[in-house]
């Protein structure tokens, strides 16, 4: 037992999609009792590798060995049977069922074809207890916040294989972006559970875009770039700067210059003025002014009303008080059309459900807003359309640079760029970006932030919402702070404004 044997060994993995080689000869290994980070930019092949491992995509080349035995994984079910469980970013459980039912759904303990409810509840309670969680397994899942639901999803995947007598249990647990919608305390709770599972010998594959979290919880990491393996490192031996360099393949562009730039930039006359705008259950009535070329950043905790405020300014939700004037004209804001007509564009934080039409191509998704504004009777002439699309694909570096590709097949960062292209093509006066950098990689994050600065230089106003305060501070001329669904402060950005000051404002509700 001198050298521990990897529980999972993937060798020479190849995966091709029409026109794209997503993975070319990637090696990956995972040892029992470790938390292993899979790192890389969007489109580097992280998701593809995970999907190959969990049987969502068939392999085009290479081998997978589990416990030293070579095996084929043809379906997610087979992967689960073999002891590879996955928890995705979105919780795929039934909110109307109880926690216990969710944990055992599909493998309920039965006797003579009847479900043994009491045993199921007992087993679920034991499992939850063993993992050190305080959850009432008889309560409906929907009575718990999203973070707890995610923990239940993990408990469910860990419990797989226990009840059918095989006893193999989970050997490999894949966590794909589990933390992206959790707050700090919830993340800590998740980490506690992860450490516990690690100590029980489970190998955990962890994907996250938050570098700090990687450094907090992971033991080792594998870095991918453009579908190839860049290296495998102990977390303790590679610092963040080194990691980012590995991920993007060049020294990271300094974003610091942006900040200096924004601090000295001039902004123009008033573009948008909101007076007493509010919506019951959304955000309390607020006054807001956005100047031409100004970047207004919104800071506040998750659920503080940031998104709700943005949606009111776009007419995505109907305000029940107040009025909005854009460019001197009052806009009714009863539907997105009103706002769009006045030159407002909105990139929702939910790319998949509120942004893209996954079945349509990149080209169709890009022209959608412009086409909607022109109406169905006036299609954009093909030549002009192709030229516009090609221009924005190039300008935003959308990959693959194929306008015919189905947008659902693109990586998160590229999908975000498609959404940006969709609105930029309409040349809006005010661009609302709700968490444009969530769930995308460092390289694309930097690109998008630079884009925001250059847009504001050209005179476009931007309402910028991000969970990362550094990002908001770096880009904004003015920062609006939200707390408990109220706009509590407006702070002019300056050298003396630090994340800590903003946090104090969020905590106290007032700006000193």
């Amino acid at each position, binding site marked *: 037992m001198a050298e*521990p044997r990897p529980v999972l060994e993937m060798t020479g993995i190849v995966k091709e999609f029409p026109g794209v080689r997503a993975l070319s000869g990637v090696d990956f290994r995972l040892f029992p009792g470790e938390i292993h980070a899979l790192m890389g930019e969007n489109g580097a092949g992280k998701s593809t590798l995970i999907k190959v491992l969990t049987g969502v995509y068939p392999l085009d080349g290479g081998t997978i060995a589990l416990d030293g035995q070579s095996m084929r994984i043809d379906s997610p079910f*087979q992967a689960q049977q073999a002891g590879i469980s996955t928890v995705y970013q979105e919780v795929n459980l039934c909110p109307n069922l109880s926690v216990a039912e969710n944990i055992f759904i599909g493998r309920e303990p039965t006797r003579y074809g009847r479900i043994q409810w009491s045993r199921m509840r007992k087993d679920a309670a034991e499992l939850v207890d063993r993992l050190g969680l305080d959850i009432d397994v008889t309560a409906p899942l929907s009575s718990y916040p999203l973070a707890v639901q995610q923990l239940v999803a993990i408990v469910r995947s860990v419990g797989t294989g226990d009840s059918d007598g095989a006893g193999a249990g989970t050997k490999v647990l894949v966590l794909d972006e589990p933390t992206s919608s959790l707050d700090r305390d919830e993340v800590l709770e998740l980490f506690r559970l992860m450490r516990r599972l690690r100590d029980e010998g489970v190998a955990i594959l962890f994907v996250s875009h938050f570098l700090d979290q990687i450094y907090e919880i992971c033991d080792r990491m594998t870095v991918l770039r453009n579908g190839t393996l860049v290296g495998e490192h102990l977390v303790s031996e590679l610092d963040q700067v080194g990691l980012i360099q590995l991920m993007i393949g060049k020294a990271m562009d300094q974003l610091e210059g942006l900040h200096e730039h924004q601090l000295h930039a001039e902004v123009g006359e008033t573009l948008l003025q909101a007076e007493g705008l509010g919506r019951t259950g959304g955000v309390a009535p607020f006054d807001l002014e956005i100047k031409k070329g100004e970047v207004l950043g919104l800071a506040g905790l998750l659920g503080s009303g940031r998104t709700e405020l943005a949606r009111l300014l776009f007419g995505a939700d109907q305000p029940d008080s107040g009025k909005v004037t854009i460019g001197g004209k009052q806009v009714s804001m009863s539907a997105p059309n009103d706002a769009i007509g006045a030159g407002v564009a909105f990139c929702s934080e939910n790319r998949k459900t509120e942004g893209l039409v996954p079945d349509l191509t990149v080209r169709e998704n890009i022209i*959608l807003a412009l086409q909607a504004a022109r109406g169905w009777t006036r299609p954009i002439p093909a030549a002009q359309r192709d030229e516009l699309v090609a221009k924005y694909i190039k300008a935003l570096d959308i990959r693959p640079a194929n306008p015919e590709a189905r947008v659902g097949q693109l990586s998160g960062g590229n999908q975000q760029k498609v959404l940006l292209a969709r609105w930029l093509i309409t040349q809006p006066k005010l661009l609302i970006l709700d968490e444009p950098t969530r769930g995308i990689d460092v390289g694309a994050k930097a690109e998008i932030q630079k884009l925001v600065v250059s847009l504001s230089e050209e005179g476009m106003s931007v309402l910028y919402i991000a969970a990362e305060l550094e990002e908001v501070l770096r880009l904004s001329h003015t920062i609006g702070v939200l707390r408990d669904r109220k706009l509590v402060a407006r702070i002019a950005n300056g050298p003396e404004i630090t994340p800590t000051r903003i946090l104090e404002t969020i905590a106290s509700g007032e700006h000193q």
Partner: protein
Amino acid sequence: MTTTPRWRALTQHHLFWPVAVLVVLLLINVPFTPDFFSIKMTDGHLYGSLVSIVLFGSPLILVAVGMTLVIATGGIDLSVGAVVAITGALTCSYISDQADQDSLSGVFLALGIGLVAAVVCGLWNGFLVARMGIQPIIATLIIMVAGRGVAQLITDGQIITINSEPYKLIGGGYWLTLPFSIFVVAAVVAVTVALTRRTALGLLVESVGGNAEASRLVGIRSMRIKIMVYVFCALCAGIAGLMISSNTSAADGNNAGLWIELDAILAVVIGGTSLLGGRFSIGGTVVGALVIQTLTTTIYTIGVPTQTNLVFKAAVVIVVCLLQSPKFRAKVFGNKFGSGAGSGAKGGGTSAATPADTAPTTAAAPKMEVS
């Protein structure tokens, strides 16, 4: 191996499977009717099985083309059969009240009345679905059930027969050696394709069906689009209603267009448009409708007993739907026809997938030295 990519591209074309099924169905007829593919000229009219298939399939093609757009928005229209009946009943009862049934102006007015009624039905459906937010299957069920009653009311529960030469042309007449209805169908299909692909209507319909919330946030007036497709669908059904009543020179409120909605939905699905909405194919739908009509013809020519022909039809439909499924193709044919999405589950349940020999190592996390 040089043909492989081409073959692959061909089999992955969205019309490949519908057309393949159509060809196979047509060929099945040959042993039973050796002159199946021959077309004869008699009295200046072309006759033959192929011509008949298109002629008798015309109303179905019309209804299915309209249905395609409704389904592409994520909806469904069950009322088309009733709209067929209402249109036929109104038009025929108007013509039968005329002193001179051959009067062109009278016939045109009758056509107008019938089609306006169809449009009103479509507006009602669209209003319920788009404005009231009622589920399409329920909203259109109302006219499906009530519409036949309305049609019977118009005809007083009788079958109205008429004797109008100009009206007979639409569904039973000939023009340039071919049945006139073929020209009507060709015109409607051409107009539909132009309307959806030459304008941006097709894109907006696919967007609304593909992601309704995203479409709203991008500024598409989905309500208008939805009302438009329901009206268009009803209009298509109305034209089909004219055709059916013209062909028989009679309006039967009870049986005209009975169950045509189901055949139309089937034709749309066979044509490759998903019931979930989004991408649609008018060409696919036309082929799908022809498949269903050919199937009906085949049932007669190969002599399936009438009592069991529905069972036979169902069996063929199951086969067609299975062939349409990428998963099924991957399972049966392997990767040759698979679309890449299907996981070739040939080795399903390989025993290597059940590792029970070694318990998970519970030693404390080993840190590997990695250079």
